[in-house]
């Protein structure tokens, strides 16, 4: 045998959804025992390609070869039979089943469970030793942390004899320490001869652990390179098709008077879970305070309280005067009247009405603004339309058609519609949640510039993001949230990802060494909240 066949070879894969060409003539070769990264912006077609490989979609054209064998993959059973395992971004686990039951689910040997479970228990023990995938087989999924759940997903694939593992945005919900642990596991799997495909939008991960990387743009595979031959800036350029600024360009902050002063904020949700615990911080004019943390540790609740749609106990002073946290003026309209604008975390369910046209969304939340009214009863639709057109021009929303429904814009352009609406209110305080989630790199650059420009106008900005890079790049001060509490504040120049990562896991004595087990225990202890939402 002179050459090894590639573990996976795709030839000319194409797939269209209606008029949208999601994948265009894609060909790649992934050699066995390597980690291959696939990087691309949202909507570049990465997920579609993997769904074809896993049998969720049927390609319109093209061929798939697994270890040199031409293989048809009409459904996920066929994919599993071909040795492909998939770890989805959103885990497919039964929350109230044990680890063991989840591993066996769908791969039972017969009508009775007992033999399968016994066999799986043995196998898990072997796998755990082989790949350092230690999980308690009898733990209930809802009681274990996200990192552990992800390991169960990997175990599921390995139990099904997968030797090709596809991971879709695996680090989205992990702290840096957990991500490191995952990469160690992936390294181990690779050493054992497994082939790994890693889909991500994080350049750093690609650089850290892949051997080769393919870049996708607008449904096409634009290039495949050896990771050692490229750099983050080069990859970003290949993804976007032009040079991009990866660093946020900004001057040092010049904080002035305190705009927002939060003292002892507490929130308990309907289920009785204590979501915010004595949260206190302040933001000054001309300053960006970044809130770092793993998703689901109280950041959403904090934004909701400030935005006026969750009631809370405690005290919040805005420009020195208290705001109503429970009464009749604790709603979003009153908050806007106090000079608080809000780019919410979830633009699809909060920031926009997807069925409304772009111009209707321009007035959203500000529909009482006198400039949008024709009389006491009638709204001035023409004025809103014109305002929308101007905002879309200024923020370079494409296509610049205000009549188009919000759902028909790309993620980045949808976000620009929201950001334009909120920033152009010239608020004293801007709340920004996950400003660049699902947004393409080009738009990220633009949105970051807008936020910094607002800061430089002497406004206060509260930035919540699960992307540490974004927090480090934009913030003038960083507060880390864990389990509803603020674990500490740091200055970006005086901290690093490792320290923030430990704080995100609830470890405050960050100068001492900590094991991954300790961090995981902490995270699991933080409860179901951490798994609430991705």
């Amino acid at each position, binding site marked *: 045998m002179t050459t090894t066949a590639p573990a996976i070879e795709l030839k000319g894969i194409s797939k269209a959804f209606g008029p949208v060409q999601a994948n265009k003539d894609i060909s790649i070769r992934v050699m066995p025992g390597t980690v291959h990264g696939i990087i691309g912006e949202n909507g570049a077609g990465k997920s579609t390609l993997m769904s074809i490989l896993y049998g969720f979609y049927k390609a319109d054209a093209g061929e798939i070869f697994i270890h040199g064998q031409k293989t048809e993959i009409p459904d996920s059973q066929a994919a599993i039979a071909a040795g492909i395992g998939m770890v989805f971004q959103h885990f497919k686990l039964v929350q109230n089943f044990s680890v063991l039951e989840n591993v066996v689910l769908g791969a039972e040997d017969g009508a009775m469970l007992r033999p399968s479970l016994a066999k799986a228990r043995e196998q898990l023990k072997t796998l755990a030793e082989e790949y350092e995938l230690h999980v308690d087989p009898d733990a209930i999924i809802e009681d274990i942390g996200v990192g552990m759940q992800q390991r169960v997903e990997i175990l599921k694939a390995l139990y099904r004899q997968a030797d090709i593992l596809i991971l879709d945005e695996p680090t989205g919900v992990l702290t840096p320490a957990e991500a490191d642990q995952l990469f160690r596991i992936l390294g181990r799997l690779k050493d054992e001869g497994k082939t790994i495909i890693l889909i991500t939008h994080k350049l750093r991960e690609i650089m850290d652990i892949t051997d080769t990387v393919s870049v996708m743009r607008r449904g096409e595979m634009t290039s495949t390179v050896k990771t050692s031959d490229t750099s983050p800036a080069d990859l970003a350029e290949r993804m976007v098709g032009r040079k991009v600024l990866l660093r946020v360009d900004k001057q040092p902050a010049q904080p002035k008077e305190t705009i927002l002063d939060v003292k002892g904020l507490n929130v308990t949700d309907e289920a009785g879970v204590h979501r915010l615990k004595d949260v206190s911080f302040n933001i000054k004019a001309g300053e960006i305070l970044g809130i770092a943390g793993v998703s689901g540790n109280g950041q959403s609740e904090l934004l909701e309280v400030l935005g006026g*749609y969750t009631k809370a106990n405690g005290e919040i002073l805005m420009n020195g005067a208290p705001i109503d946290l429970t009464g009749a003026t604790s709603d979003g309209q009153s908050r806007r009247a106090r000079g608080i604008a809000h780019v919410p975390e979830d633009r699809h*369910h909060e920031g926009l*009405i997807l069925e409304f046209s772009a111009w209707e969304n321009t*007035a959203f*939340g500000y529909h009482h603004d006198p400039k949008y009214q024709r009389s006491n009863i009638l709204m001035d639709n023409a004025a809103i339309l014109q305002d929308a057109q101007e905002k879309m021009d200024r923020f370079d929303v494409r296509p610049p058609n205000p009549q188009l429904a919000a759902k028909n814009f790309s993620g980045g352009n949808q976000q620009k519609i929201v950001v334009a609406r909120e920033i152009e209110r010239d608020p004293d305080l801007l709340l920004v949640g996950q400003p660049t989630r699902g947004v393409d790199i080009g738009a990220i650059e633009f949105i970051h510039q807008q936020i910094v420009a607002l800061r430089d106008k002497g406004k206060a900005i509260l930035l919540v993001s699960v992307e540490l890079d974004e927090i480090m790049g934009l913030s003038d001060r960083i507060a880390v949230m864990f389990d509803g509490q603020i674990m500490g504040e740091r200055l970006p120049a005086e901290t690093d990802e490792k320290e923030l990562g430990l704080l995100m896991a609830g470890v405050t004595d960050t100068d001492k060494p900590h094991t991954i087990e300790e961090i995981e225990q902490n995270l699991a202890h933080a409860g179901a909240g951490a798994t609430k939402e991705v």
Partner: protein
Amino acid sequence: MDKMPKWADVVLVPVVSLLLAAIISVIVFVAVGQNPWEALKLMAYGAVGTSDFLGYTLFYATNFIFTGLAVAVAFHASLFNIGGEGQVLLGGLGAAIVCLFVPWPHWTLALIGGGLAAAVFGALWVVIPAYLQARRGSHIVITTIMFNFMASGLLVYMLSDALRPEGQMQTATAIFPDRTHLPSLNDVAGLFGSDLFGRSPVNVSIFIALAACVGVWLLIWHTRLGYQIRAFGQSESAAKYAGISAVNITMIALLISGGLAGMMAVNNTMGINTPQLVDNAAGGAGFIGIAVALMGRNHPVGIIIAALLFGALYQGGAELSAATSIPVQIVVVIQALVIMFTGALDQMVRSPIEKMFMRRSRAAAAGE
């Protein structure tokens, strides 16, 4: 890129639905041994064949416009008010009370007073379901349908006791005073020497119905309230973010809905040839309103068209059973088929048509 062109959504889908209903209707007619073609001709004749028939069609259409608008307004807030039937009955009670106990000097004033009373009574009847939905999360479908039964019971009680004149056998109010009797359209046409609508009860309240269509159009697409109703209806979480009060919008949208349904009673009490309130005053219009709103895509223009269609179907069906040996139950089956295909089974027709357009636009894109 929308899934399909607007004309397909507005015209093609309802037409295909109607065709399917017609095909099944043909099977039903054949099964009961009737010639479907003859039956169809008779129905069409019964709907528009004479001035009387045409007038009746318009009379029923007036009812359906009111109830259709009522369903549509609530629907824009994503609320399914299926209590139109009960709200109509209560509206009738309101109209009857002001007509019987207030000495109106002229029908125009009676129309205003009766219309207001009908709207207020209809709206009041939805207050409790609306409150339970807004504050307690009790599903509006369950509560409004239960309120239909209560309305019907309440009305029978009122008409057999409190409001029934002594010595009258019928469960109905006394006949309203002359000055509360709305002029029929034939009276109006008579001013120009025409006999366009015969002895049919279609009356000036059809203009109120059309005005209500304009009003609803303005409300939904040109007022702040309408904006908030639509925003809430599309996304409750987004409405929360924007500071739109779910409780207020739920209450207001349902009250307007109940008011519109109640106003139908003006047509059905003050407008009929013998103006009075009878115990089956709603006659199913509350439910037909659901189909009208669905078929009319919750837009006033669509609702007018759908109401005319259902008016014709209702009237034509009545003539069909009167003129032939076709049992009235079969006519009800035909009407139910149309409601089912245009309303409940809308998605069954819609999604294949959508897919067809998707395929076509993809083919067009590939051919570029």
